[in-house]
């Protein structure tokens, strides 16, 4: 009943073909599918945080609006642009790999990496601003405004600095910032991992490893990078923009 199938080792088997795949097509398909399945887990991973965000925004709308108005919309918008551009260059990197143009491929990857690092840099500036404004929640952060530690010592935190809208309390603003740092922090972590992956791609790309027949890694990292972009596309309006129209209300 067992019959011989087409010989597994093609005479002209691609050097990148792993032993357990029949051909490059199967290998590429598996890689892409694997990344998509992984992205599903990523969606659910962020989903838990989006759920917490949605719940607390609906519970504390005024606090979330006040806190969100305190974020730097210019830096946020610029960062959105930077990330979209990096997504574009990543897509172009995949394109140049598919048509087999090595030099533009490398350049696109380098550009993507630089843009990704730019994003992280700007994010770092924002984080530092928040640190200066003592808006990072948690006992680990020195001289934080939130929480009983400071309040009990009788140094009332300057609530006006937070521009609290009516109906918002410091405690709820702290909730916003905790969710803000959790979500953008997780996003930044994904960016850092992505930057690492792209560095690998650049290294191997310079050695001419990827060609039209074998470009699965570029494609797969591309998918990941675009996903991180999409997360930010949602984070930006949710964290920076909602409630903006109440700023002067």
């Amino acid at each position, binding site marked *: *009943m067992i019959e011989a199938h087409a010989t597994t080792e093609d005479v002209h088997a691609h050097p990148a073909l792993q032993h357990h795949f029949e051909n490059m097509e199967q290998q590429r398909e598996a890689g892409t*599918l694997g990344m998509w399945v992984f992205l599903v887990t990523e969606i659910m991973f*962020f989903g*838990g945080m989006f759920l917490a965000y949605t719940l607390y925004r609906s519970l504390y709308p005024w606090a979330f609006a006040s806190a969100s108005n305190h974020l730097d919309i210019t830096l946020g918008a610029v960062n959105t642009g930077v990330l979209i551009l990096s997504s574009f260059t990543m897509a172009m990197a995949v394109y140049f790999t598919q048509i087999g143009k090595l030099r533009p491929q490398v350049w696109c990857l380098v550009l993507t990496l630089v843009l990704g690092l730019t994003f992280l840099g700007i994010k770092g500036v924002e984080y530092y601003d928040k640190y200066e404004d003592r808006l990072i929640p948690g006992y680990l952060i020195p001289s934080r405004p939130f929480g009983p530690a400071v309040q009990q010592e009788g140094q009332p935190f300057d609530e006006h600095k937070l521009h609290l809208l009516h109906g918002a309390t410091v405690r709820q603003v702290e909730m916003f910032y905790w969710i803000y740092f959790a979500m953008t922090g997780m996003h930044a972590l994904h960016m850092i991992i992505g930057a690492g992956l792209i560095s690998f791609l650049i290294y191997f790309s310079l050695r001419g490893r990827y060609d039209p027949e074998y470009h699965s890694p570029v494609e797969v990292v591309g998918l990941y990078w675009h996903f991180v972009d999409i997360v930010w596309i949602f984070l930006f309006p949710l964290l920076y923009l909602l409630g903006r129209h109440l700023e002067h209300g």
Partner: protein
Amino acid sequence: MQAIESFEVPTPPKVNYINAQYGLKSWLLTKDHKRIALLYLGSVTFFFFIGGLYAMMIRLELLTPQGDLLQSTTYNKVFTQHGIIMVFFFLIPSIPATLGNFLIPMMIGAKDLAFPRINLLSWYIYLAGGLITIYALLAGGVDTGWTFYTPFSTTFSNSYVVATGLGIFINGFSSILTGLNFIVTIHTMRAPGMTWFRMPLFIWSHYATSLIMILGTPVIAITVLLLAFERVARVGIFDPALGGDPVLFQHLFWFYSHPAVYIMVLPGMGVISELVANFSRKNIFGYSFVAFSSLAIAVFGFLVWGHHLFVTPQSVYAGMIFSFLSFAVAIPSAIKVFNWTATLYKSSISYDTPMLYALGFIGLFTIGGMTGLFLASLATDVHLSDTYFVIAHFHYIMVGGTLMAYLGGLHYWWPKISGRMYPEGWGRFSALVIFVGFNLTFLPQFVAGYLGMPRRYHAYPPEFQVFNVLSTAGASILGFGMLIPAIYFVWSMRYGKHAEANPWHLPGLEWRTQSPPPTENFEVTPIVTWDAYEFAPREETEVVGKFGPELERI
């Protein structure tokens, strides 16, 4: 008859995956799914015995109502660690990571899983998560219950919650990667001719399991991570003192942890489908119904988590939605039980050890599933939640279901895995001992639960003692029964009779290669031209099951 003889493949003691390479390094760096399965088998067994040790401590403590053996702090840690080890480090990886890992490529005619390196990585991640958890246990333990309910876990517990949480978080990635690997493998690596409806039901159930793994596990990962952060940094999504909502934690926790129950039992159902069909030499009754019921369970399993929150209390209306959906998820499980039973009709049943486990599974799973209805039903759940009834119910599913299936599967595929036969007499004896011990342990707990004995009680009102004494007696028998297979499996690796390629005379793909298989599983890539469980030519099929004309007319 003819068909069976032709399955025979000569089994000369050839090069196989075990003796292909030697040395520790060849095992620790292996990318062979079969070797990784063995790595998992060893580590999962290790965690099982740790968890079992904790179980014995619980049972000994509960022998008397006063709580005199262990202090309450110790007892709280013991039941917490029993839960954590058994759930996250035994039950969830048990069947998928060992039997699934070993058999999925073989059953679909592939040389390996799609991502062998990721497969090895998942074992190391599992090990890292496990070691961190063990560190937490040795450093002082954790006492939150495996459910980690806030704000106890975030603020009030004075134990190693963060380290344990980290262990579970890391271990989650092992589960995700395993599920990812299975899904991609099943989609892309099937041998020519292996269509979806020719796949053994073991594959279907693992596919469904993998879906839950990739969709649910990330949610518990982020939840546990947030929990750990909250504890370390005193920030609060879940802490009411900081404006958070502890019920949100329960929603997120059970969004994973209820489907996780199906991660544990679905692979078991897959094993049972194999055992029932193969040891009765019969195609499974209603193949497509059994296959799709696995997927239905995977989907419905995500819709019912709120039945853990009936008394939390969540909104009464949400409770009703969740109750309704919980009853709905019972139906696909019922379909499976009926189909397994119907498969036996006019079949040829052997009494080999794996079949004994399969029969035990069907009986115990029926009880476990039916008692689940008491907990899905709102009014009875109000009385029963957090009592020993719940404990008994889920042990019937987890031990009576998953563990029975795991042991049955291990016996069934042991010749393929090790190339040796286990001692059949001892096998049957231990199956019987385990069955008796199990029932004696957990049947009395149903009654104790309805009488109102709450779970996680270190000392309890004396009128419950009689049930606890029975339970402890049963647990001793159960524990003894577990030791027997552990001993003879190890013994058989050296002294067991050499197994043929196809010792059970079965048509499945995994039996059409030598025992143990070569590293690439098959000498040549097979071309599949037969259905799963095709013992006799399809032409002989009775198109209409003769269940009596009176039934067929309905």
